[in-house]
């Protein structure tokens, strides 16, 4: 089985995130980069399927030079190889451009399964997996809390507002995962050493056969007009319960007209 896992480098989960003053894109220099948390779950799920069914796992990322760190992390968890699409002209790509670039890199490589996280922690759009499925013309199985593969088909439990749906498709398919699915492993020392020797294919947009007029900030379908930091919230009233904490809270709610 050939498995791809799309991973995105994002600012450290706990770091304060900012937009850049010059072009309103995410300020990636302001914080350490880490692998998007949910993408670790996607890598883990791919590794588990590989343990059960064999096959090869390829990490796919689009991002600046330093996203190479995230690629290494995925390789040190156990993935076999990676494709890193890196090109200055990709800077500022929106969801249409990103899905176009990823789909083009994935296309023609005969993947049976393409894993994603279900949402990034920076832009949080939660659309890229569905958009890549649309572009590739393969089944979309997203928000999976459980994945089973039997050789020719894949079954997931798709988390919904009211519980879950069981969704089935023939391979190939796009699968995005939620955090209930597994517990991602930490890279072992051996894994970290082995990762250094694993092949990473670095592609420019030209190498990937991408049409430059559909990429980057200048080609975006959306534009940021302006942005501003929200003024910090005024500090609230904090009281210590001396036996009347509930009553004080009720008074606050009454003043605010909630009761």
């Amino acid at each position, binding site marked *: 089985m050939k498995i791809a896992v799309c991973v995105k480098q994002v600012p450290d989960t706990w770091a304060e995130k900012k937009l850049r003053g010059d072009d309103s894109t995410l300020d990636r220099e302001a914080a350490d980069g880490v692998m998007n948390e949910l993408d670790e779950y996607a890598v883990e799920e791919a590794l588990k399927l590989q343990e059960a069914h064999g096959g090869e796992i390829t990490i796919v990322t689009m991002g600046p030079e330093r996203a190479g760190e995230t690629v290494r992390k995925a390789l040190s968890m156990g993935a076999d190889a990676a494709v890193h699409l890196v090109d200055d002209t990709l800077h500022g790509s929106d969801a*249409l451009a990103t899905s176009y670039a990823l789909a083009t890199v994935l296309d023609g490589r005969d993947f049976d399964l393409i894993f994603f996280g*279900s949402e990034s922690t920076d832009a949080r759009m939660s659309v890229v997996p569905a958009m890549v499925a649309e572009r590739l013309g393969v089944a979309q199985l997203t928000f999976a809390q459980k994945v089973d593969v039997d050789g020719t088909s894949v079954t997931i439990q798709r988390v919904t507002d009211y519980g879950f749906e069981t969704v089935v498709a023939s391979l190939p*398919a796009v699968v995005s995962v939620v955090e209930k699915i597994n517990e991602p492993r930490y890279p072992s020392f051996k894994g970290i050493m082995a990762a250094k020797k694993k092949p990473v294919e670095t592609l420019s947009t030209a190498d990937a056969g991408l049409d430059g007029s559909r990429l980057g900030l200048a080609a975006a379908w959306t534009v940021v*007009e302006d942005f501003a930091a929200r003024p910090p919230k005024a500090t609230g009233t*904090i009281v210590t319960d001396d036996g009347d904490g509930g009553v004080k*809270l009720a008074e606050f709610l009454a003043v605010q007209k909630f009761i």
Partner: protein
Amino acid sequence: MSEVLVVAEHADGVVKKVTSELLTLARTLGEPSAVWIGPGYCDAAAATLGEFGAGKVYVADGAQYIDHPVAPRAEVLANLVSEHSPSAVLIASSADGKETAGRLAIKINSGVITDAIGISADRIATQSVFGGSTVVHSKVIKGTPIFTVRPNSTPPVPASTTLTRVDVTVPVSELAMKAKVTGRTVAQKDGRPDLAEAAIVVSGGRGVGAAEGFAVIEALADTLGAAVGASRAATDAGWYPHQYQVGQTGKTVSPQLYLANGISGAIQHRAGMQTSKTIVVVNKDSEAPLFELADFGVVGDLFKVVPQLTEEIKKRA
């Protein structure tokens, strides 16, 4: 005036509150036409859509539209966009709504903006990003603008109209049928307001200690007519069902009032509730990071504070 498509969110034939909000917002952009996709269109649904100003409703009624996730919905919408050239498409920012928007964007080669909390008459969207710390104004510059809009961002205002029903039949493509829903597991409904749409949410976390502990959370929620939420620590422990999880990988809520009890305030929890208008925190640890967001906080044992609050509200009622 130009036509604005508003995708109706519905469950069991009932139109969700977010749809009334979107219709209200759409009236500031043009003439709203609702789009109903899936089985169960009925008079009650029509009444709600008309009450909030939909002049038309395109009805694609049939199980085939929901027996395959997301893709058929995007096909119906792409079809309507090419036939009627609306000036914008509004969809609720639910998981399905966002994915539908994404697929539609590709089909009609248009830009998409997700999680808008407002849209001005000249179609500039307001987004609240990075956990509410930054406000962004953005717009779509290519194609028919597609917006997904967060629940609870526009107060619904009725504006009665006569609703005209237009039936549409869009065959579901081979591609959209590749993924098939073979079963639905419906978690027990609790009779409380929908979590994502509720005006008040009362949440419990690890501090609640056990499944039985949620009785005090539910009692408070019921005196306030609120929905119940939970942190991942509480859902993972099996104390409360997963569909009530608030946070990055649970529901995003933006109620008028959010009461967090025994929740420390991890970044992933904040991601789902940070834009709540008023935040109340009850935690026995004065250092709990969620106090940073609190408009009002009580440092104390939730098993003392919460029941006392419930009693006090009942007394005042």
